[in-house]
């Protein structure tokens, strides 16, 4: 069985950015299809929030949720075709996307493509991170929300960023109250960014709301500490934390041991740029926005004509950025097709995006990844779990011939396993760059080749002409 589909605009990703883009483009008269590998539209953000509260609570507390529902309803009303359970795994000709629906492979043809592929969690290894019981915030969130399973025992949250608070909130709601949250940054360090808060009142009240909820539940937040080691016999039993300086370097003599059954640790997000890279978009390294990001113009069109990028994939910024930027990309793509879009609407969307990006960047700066965190990756720490490659192997390969991550990959096999380097890629780049003292740009990124996610040989075979 094969799939064939023609559309004006194909939007990849049904999160806030993709849905907002679809709505805007459809509003301008474009035929729009939204492709997403998951069964329910809504992306990571709405998916995780959808079951968060009972309906009355939702109405009372969190307008993001209701916004998610409203957005989805509006998208449906606008005649957008939603194509769930559709994995985009490749692109071989301009204007085409290779897709997989279950075991049926096929092709989607579009005059414009909007990449709204979101982000995934940034993993920074430390000794013991591979013990059972160590999880990422996203992993915990999915467990709690989608599978209604609370992690076991004493739960400790660590790392950095606002998502930790969101996960804490979910855990509290699920009756699995975390014992403590360790945030790597310090409020004192935030102060220098304070003036930039002016005007972002909705976001501030939202943050305060989270903060209050967590305080009310009696979960302490400790600042300026990072997990330097996890220990245990066959599974996690305790973690060692240390106070760190502004650069994230542990301060000697501050070790503290915490008994713990589940450690939920994360350092923010990385744009999910694999598809944009496969499409040939030029990328640049921008640490503040999560790492490699596709370049784009004012209307979110990438370096490849008729390919637009929007939301987290264009730089980490959160759901509000995604909504605003999605609308802009949708209007831009519609205009690119020759459809009428009022200049005023365009200008408004641009302005809204800039405002939201400013706040997004502020949050990014407040929770900026401290470089010292990478120093915790000991020589014997596994970096690539799929292929069991240690940091030592990566550091050695880095110095061999001109520090290039694809060379390091060839020597060590890091990034060649099932996840194709999604987990270890950033770490391998960082370790390679640090070992030889050069920039991330200089060491490059893992080459991206189809399929973006594993697909069955039989499904590909069905695409062949007999």
């Amino acid at each position, binding site marked *: 069985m094969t799939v064939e589909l023609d559309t004006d605009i194909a939007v990849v990703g049904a999160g806030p950015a993709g849905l907002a883009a679809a709505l805007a483009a459809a509003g301008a008269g474009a035929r729009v299809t939204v492709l997403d590998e998951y069964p329910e539209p809504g992306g990571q953000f709405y998916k995780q929030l959808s079951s968060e509260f009972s309906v009355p609570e939702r109405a009372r507390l969190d307008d993001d949720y209701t916004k998610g529902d409203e957005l989805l309803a509006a998208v449906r009303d606008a005649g957008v075709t939603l194509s769930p359970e559709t994995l985009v795994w490749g692109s071989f*000709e301009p204007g085409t996307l290779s897709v997989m629906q279950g075991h049926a492979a096929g092709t989607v043809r579009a005059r414009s493509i909007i990449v709204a592929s979101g982000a995934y969690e940034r993993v920074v290894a430390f000794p013991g991170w591979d013990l059972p019981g160590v999880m990422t915030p996203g992993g915990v969130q999915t467990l709690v929300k989608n599978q209604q399973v609370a992690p076991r025992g004493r739960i400790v949250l660590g790392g950095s960023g606002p998502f930790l608070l969101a996960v804490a909130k979910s855990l509290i709601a699920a009756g699995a109250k975390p014992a403590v949250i360790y945030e790597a940054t310090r409020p004192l360090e935030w102060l220098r960014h304070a003036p930039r808060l002016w005007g972002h009142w909705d976001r501030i009240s939202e943050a305060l709301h989270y903060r209050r909820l967590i305080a009310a539940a009696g979960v302490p937040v400790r600042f300026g500490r990072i997990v330097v080691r996890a220990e245990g016999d066959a599974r996690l039993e305790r973690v060692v934390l240390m106070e760190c300086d502004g650069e994230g370097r542990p301060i000697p003599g501050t070790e503290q041991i915490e008994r713990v059954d589940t450690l939920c640790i994360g350092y923010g997000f990385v744009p999910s740029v694999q598809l944009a890279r496969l499409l040939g978009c030029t990328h640049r390294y921008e640490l503040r926005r999560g790492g490699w990001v596709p370049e784009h113009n004012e209307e979110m069109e990438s370096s490849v004509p008729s390919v637009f990028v929007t939301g987290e994939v264009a730089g980490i910024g959160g759901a509000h950025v995604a909504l605003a930027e999605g609308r802009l990309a949708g209007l831009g793509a519609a205009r690119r097709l020759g459809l009428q879009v009022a200049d005023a609407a365009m200008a408004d969307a641009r302005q809204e995006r800039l405002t939201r990006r400013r706040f997004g960047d502020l949050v990014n700066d407040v929770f900026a990844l401290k470089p010292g965190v990478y120093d915790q990756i000991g020589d014997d720490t596994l970096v690539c779990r799929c292929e069991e490659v240690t940091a030592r192997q990566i550091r050695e390969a880095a110095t061999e011939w001109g520090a290039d991550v694809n060379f390091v990959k060839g*020597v060590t096999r890091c990034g060649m396993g099932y996840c194709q380097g999604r987990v270890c890629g950033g770490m391998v780049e960082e370790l390679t760059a640090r070992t030889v003292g050069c920039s991330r740009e200089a060491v490059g990124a893992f080459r991206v080749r*189809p399929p973006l996610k594993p697909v069955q040989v039989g499904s590909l*075979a069905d695409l*062949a002409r007999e």
Partner: protein
Amino acid sequence: MVGCAIAYYLAKRGIRVTVIERSIVGSGASSANSGAIALATKKPGIALELAMASQRLYPGLTTELGSNVDYVVEGNLIVAETEVEAAHLEALVADQQAAGVPVQPVSAARCRELNPLIEGRVLGGIHCPTDAQVDPFKVTRAYANAARNAGAEILVRTGVETIEVVGGRVRGVRTRRGAVRAQWVINAAGAHAPEIGRMVGVTHEVLPRRGQIIVLEATEGMPTIRVSGAGQLLAKHGAAAAGGANVAPSYTSKPLNGTVLLGSSNEFAGYDTRNTLPVMAEICRRARNLMPRLGGLHALRCWAGLRPYSASGPLLGGAGGPDGYATAIGHGGDGMALAPITGLYLAEYVAREGRNCSLPDFLGVLKTASPGESGGRPT
């Protein structure tokens, strides 16, 4: 790969050598192949003789170079799926046997026994139990490291832009980063060989011939013996249409990491190293026809590389043009297998200033040298 091997054997003789690489070590075809060190795929003649000489060097390479090249003898089975292919194999196996290759014709039933994944229609095949495989990237890197340890210099991210010739003799090359003076310039640019040739006004009949490969998820208990369709040989030995993608199935299990590589195509598509959907689909279809159970496994990644195709086989040594210019090009789909012997020969060629060392003589002398002695100096 070829360049690094040459550098190693030159440096080992105490000759000062610099490898100039536009990208990084092992970035070309040498990291894009399946690493077969095979005799069963070679047409009798100089290609087979080179391969036999090279295969004698391979088992000792890990020790010689001081780093593991993952040399594994897993045997090689070539199957015929059509009458034309069966006829080709029949002629080939007789010639190969006459040349001393331990290759045997086998029945369809025996093919299935050798690799139980084969459930599709085959008419029979040929089997060479001594054929082996390596990790091509590791071989390239091992040669590069060993060359450096022996005193060679390797400049990466440095492209050759022009070759300097004074009074009919090469004097060195110019790169983006400055000049490198040399008595000899050896062209080992693989599929890009013609570009270097043009710098000294020589036309090399080498064409990039693309091959695509798909990597499958690691799976336990995959049969290790390599299997390929004889269609691949038809394309390689020039008996098939030169146009088209020439997809023939090939199955290479990588027992050390559990993956399987599916190949491949033989396409003239310029210097484009992207994968194409029709060829990927066709590779999967052909693999599934031959080995239906592969249909249920997942493809993880794919890539494409450019074989340095030459209709007349490898072009080793003097190649016209100024004095001091030599080539080690045109290895086509055999460059991995042939790189060690190529390196050894070019080192000899340079050491003798290109005099009195024809390739057949060189191979003849090697044959009488003690077996297993790699890098030995023929007298």
